């Protein structure tokens, strides 16, 4: 069971929900939590365990070899990202723009653009009882989150069966990294806050999930601040609001100390139960 925790707006509580839900469920069964916000992973601030694996992750980028190059220009024509350009008598490669699609390399008639592995980041895996925690982090200077997210997903898929609960902490927004995180999820939880900004970005996230044809529901965090527009929007769009987490200074204090919340805040535990029961019920019944 793959559940992605995403949002439109950043800072709405994806990591709070991901880490607390993962730790709570792991009290009874095996859970894998994967932090795919590879530009700034922070689930690890709340989840502590023994480091059981560490791997460098590489992406392949072309490197120009001038020996046999005929300067035909095929490479720059096929690159959608302008990562390869031809200047009079040379080919210039921009590794930061490269999406590792291999088109320039494969379609080069003289084999002048071999793909060379370049380190982009690091994956770490921790374990604490039933809770397995995987996080990946991009190296400083790397701009492409998607290849690292894809490789991290592959690692988790190869190591853990889909029978167990897999939670994915997504980056914010609605761009390529979020698509990469959510595209294989069975259910997506969109975390938002009841503010105009929260609503604005939630509508973008909803449009994205509909485009991807995903099952999804909304968790309203910091409930009590702002206004009722998020709730009204969900009602009018027939989107299930599966839990509401009340705004609380106590939560902010515990969070700021890197502590999990559900052990100390019983209402939060109730909301976690609601979230999981809803998602599981929805998937068991095969609803859309």
């Amino acid at each position, binding site marked *: 069971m793959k559940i992605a925790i995403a949002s439109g707006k950043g800072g709405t509580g994806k990591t709070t929900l991901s880490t607390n839900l993962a730790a709570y469920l792991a009290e009874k069964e095996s859970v894998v939590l994967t932090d795919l916000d590879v530009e700034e992973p922070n689930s690890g601030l709340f989840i502590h365990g023994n480091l059981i694996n560490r791997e460098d992750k590489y992406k392949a980028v072309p490197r120009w070899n001038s020996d046999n190059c005929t300067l035909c220009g095929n490479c720059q024509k096929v690159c959608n990202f302008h990562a390869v350009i031809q*200047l009079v008598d040379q080919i*210039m490669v921009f590794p930061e*723009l490269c999406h590792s699609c291999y088109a320039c390399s494969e379609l080069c008639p003289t084999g002048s653009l071999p793909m060379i592995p370049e380190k982009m980041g690091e994956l770490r895996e921790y374990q604490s009882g039933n809770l397995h925690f995987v996080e990946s982090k991009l190296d400083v200077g790397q701009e492409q989150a998607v290849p690292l997210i894809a490789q991290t997903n592959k690692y988790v898929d190869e190591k853990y069966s889909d029978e167990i609960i897999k939670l994915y902490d997504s980056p914010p927004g609605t761009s390529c990294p979020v698509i990469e995180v959510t595209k294989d999820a069975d259910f997506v939880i969109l975390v938002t806050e009841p503010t105009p900004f929260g609503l604005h970005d939630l509508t973008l996230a909803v449009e994205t999930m509909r485009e991807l044809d995903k099952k999804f529901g909304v968790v309203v965090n910091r409930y009590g601040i702002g206004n009722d527009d998020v709730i009204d929007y969900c009602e009018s769009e027939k989107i299930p609001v599966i839990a509401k987490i009340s705004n609380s200074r106590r939560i902010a204090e515990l969070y700021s100390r890197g502590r999990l919340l559900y052990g100390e805040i019983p209402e939060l535990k109730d909301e976690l139960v609601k979230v999981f029961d809803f998602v599981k019920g929805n998937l068991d019944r095969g609803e859309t």
Partner: protein
Amino acid sequence: MKIVFTTKGSEWESKIDPRFGRTEYFLIYDEESDELSSFDNRAINDVAHGAGPQTAQKLFELKPDVLITGNGPGGNAARVLGSANIKIFVGAGEMTAKEAFEAYKKGELKEF
């Protein structure tokens, strides 16, 4: 001397476009022949990734001696321009092309 400006239009009175990669136009002034021409770069709006290198590649083809712009090219574009031996002057973001040219002549623009 061939001087290229990043601009928002095709005339001397056009404002400098402070952006390099996503500049709307190149205004091209050939000092020897006293000829002014322009290149419409607005198609760059449809390019999501790699605007810098692509615009730099276009500039490369124009073979200017000097580029006058606002903020200066980003890292990728600078790499392309670096291989072309073009002198780059920045800080003209608030001027018209005419004003920028005069400022350049007086040595008031900063070399990138």
